């Protein structure tokens, strides 16, 4: 073990297998003083990612039609030609994670055999959940089960031998009960094991190579087993730059969508006009709150906000569960889980799919989306997961969030579907995506209070995303240093908000979202390689 190596680096805490490299963290960094601010940035990565982001924004704004045309073509081209690849890879990630739970490798502890966890279960879980998908659950919790339920009920239509409907699998034409089951199964498939397995792979790779192997906390470190010392050169610069790119644009586009949903909610509740001005004000306000959180640091900022949000989300869930159709929801929860297990093999089949609209337009799109978010969420999860064993880590990052998602979808989606099926209320099914949540709440008592909580949740989930995103981008662009001067985080936080505003006004959000999805393809290859690196790294820990 490490105590016996010639470099005589003491073991992390107990047994672990440090990688012996000549690279010192921060050796490529550029440290200087800009006005009153201290700066400590990784030499090529900061500049290249910053410049290419600005260049892309200019391209999307200067030639909006060309950009929209190109990216409008690129996204479906990717999901149509590589759907089998995205779906096959995602299955591999799930199987790999499940394998780690049962294999002896699951005993390895992140940070060395004697390391103790940095955070309690509640704080840890709140943070990984808020960073991972809090906001998506607000946006899609009602709308996605409704969509799949509706298309399943509609059944299939075929034109020229190609399916033109959006129903998952073969649909369930006219069968209401089965449409609910299929709709819930399809939704849970998109929010359950597969996305969390994608996050878990990245998070585990980063945590392992940083805490146990002593490499800097940055994406490139996971490639050390593959690239060796070359990982500190251009190969690594490209990997890290891609990660910054995906994170910043992922955040900026989501900020845009979040502003849209919050605006829709405010309009519904208080009659605030839906306009770019309102959205710009919202993004500015979200960024301002995120700034306060950034300056307060990980424990004083993100953690506190994540815990508040978990509490609020839980209250909202409990409220809908109690005042909504409680019995139907609870039986629906068990039924949805069973339906998920039953339909999973068919839904996850990468080849020979006839439901092209669903498997390409929904599933492959989602997988690319999760993958493009994975450097950000994975790195953040890695940052807070030291001291957990691999088994504990996978159970908490894969299984528990999946179960919470099933519960969330059953409560929110189930309530909305019941409103349509039982009460014949059409408000939810007719509303646009960003309004469905508020329309559903509107049918329940105390709707002005719950809708307001809904808006607060959307906003605070965005604050936590913006905040943790700034931490992650700053760490990557500082070459894996987490103690670079705080004004750098402030810079990235403002930059995210500014990019979001510019794209929102210029109409470039859709193009850039397509670009984020496009980074999903190279990153899927990167993730597959990470699985191999994790396996190798864990094996060496077990000696």
């Amino acid at each position, binding site marked *: 073990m490490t105590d016996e190596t010639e470099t005589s680096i003491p073991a992390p*805490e107990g047994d672990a297998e440090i990688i012996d490299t000549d690279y010192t963290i921060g050796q490529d960094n550029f440290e200087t003083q800009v006005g009153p601010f201290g700066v400590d940035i990784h030499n090529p990565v900061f500049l290249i990612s910053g410049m290419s982001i600005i260049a892309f924004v200019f391209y999307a704004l200067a030639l909006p039609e060309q950009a929209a045309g190109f990216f409008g073509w690129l996204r479906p081209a990717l999901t149509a030609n590589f759907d089998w690849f995205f779906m096959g890879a995602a299955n591999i990630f799930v199987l790999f994670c499940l394998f780690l739970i049962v294999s002896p490798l699951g005993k390895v502890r992140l*940070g060395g055999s004697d390391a103790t966890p*940095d955070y309690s279960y509640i704080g840890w879980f709140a943070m990984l959940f808020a960073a991972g998908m809090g906001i998506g659950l607000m946006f899609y919790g009602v709308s996605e089960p409704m969509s799949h339920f509706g298309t399943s009920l509609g059944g299939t239509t075929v034109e020229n031998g190609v399916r033109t409907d959006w129903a998952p699998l073969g649909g369930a034409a006219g069968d209401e009960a089965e449409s609910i089951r299929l709709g819930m199964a399809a939704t849970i498939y998109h929010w359950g094991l597969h996305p969390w397995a994608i996050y878990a792979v990245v998070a585990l790779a980063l945590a392992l190579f940083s805490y146990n192997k002593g490499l*800097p906390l940055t994406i490139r470190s996971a490639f050390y087993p593959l690239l060796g010392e070359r990982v500190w050169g251009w190969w690594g610069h490209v990997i890290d730059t891609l990660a910054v790119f995906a994170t910043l644009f992922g955040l900026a586009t989501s900020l845009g969508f979040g502003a849209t949903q919050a605006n829709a909610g405010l309009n519904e509740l208080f009659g605030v006009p839906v306009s770019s001005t309102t959205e710009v004000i919202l993004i500015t306000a979200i960024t301002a709150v995120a700034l306060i959180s950034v*300056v307060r*640091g990980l424990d004083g900022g993100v953690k506190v906000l994540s815990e508040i949000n978990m509490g609020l989300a839980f209250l909202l869930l409990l409220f809908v569960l109690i005042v909504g159709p409680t019995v139907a929801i609870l039986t629906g929860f068990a039924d949805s889980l069973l339906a998920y297990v039953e339909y999973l093999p068919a839904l996850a089949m990468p080849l020979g799919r006839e439901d092209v609209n669903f498997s390409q337009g929904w599933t492959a799109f989602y997988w690319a989306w999760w993958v493009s978010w994975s450097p950000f969420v994975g790195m953040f999860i890695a*940052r807070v997961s030291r001291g957990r064993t691999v088994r504990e880590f996978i159970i908490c990052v894969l299984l528990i969030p999946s179960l919470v998602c099933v519960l969330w979808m059953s409560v929110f989606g189930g309530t909305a579907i019941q409103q349509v099926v039982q009460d014949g209320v059409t408000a939810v099914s007719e509303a646009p995506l960003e309004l469905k949540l508020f329309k559903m709440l509107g049918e329940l008592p105390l709707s002005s209070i719950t809708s307001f909580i809904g808006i607060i949740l959307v906003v605070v989930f965005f604050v936590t995303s913006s905040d943790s995103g700034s931490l992650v981008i700053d760490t990557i662009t500082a070459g894996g240093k*987490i*103690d670079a001067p705080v004004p750098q985080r402030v810079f990235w936080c403002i930059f995210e908000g500014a990019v979001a505003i510019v794209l929102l006004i210029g109409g470039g959000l859709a193009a850039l979202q397509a670009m984020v999805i496009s980074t999903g393809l190279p990153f899927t290859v990167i993730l597959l390689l990470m699985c191999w690196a994790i396996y190798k790294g864990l094996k060496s820990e077990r000696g």
Partner: protein
Amino acid sequence: MFKRIMMPIDLRHLDSQARALTCAHDLAKLYGATVIYVGVSAATPTEVAHTPAEYKAKLAGFATGQAGQGIATESHAIIDHDPAVDLDGALLHAVKDTGADLVVMASHDPGILNYIWPTNGGKIAGHAHVSVLVVR
């Protein structure tokens, strides 16, 4: 007069702390006090150490190197989740934990930014309940 002198130390930038180091050393000799070198680092690998254990060992090694010539030294390593932000709070805690009765620390020349964002030395001097000597 003083028995335990706490000296916050940044192992990355020892050069800029030379005056403060000498100052702590001379005061310890004068009063026959022990100097406790306090360092704050992260759990993630840093340019100083790959792991918390290595950091603790390095800080302890530094303290041992400073001993001799009539002064005793100790080390006190703090591993923090977010040192860039939590540094001041961690150091204020350390004042209590180490039982120090004097803090000697290096600080840079304050600039315009420090009106809204105080220097570490300024913050410690403002909040610690023991004497603080900020060496510029």
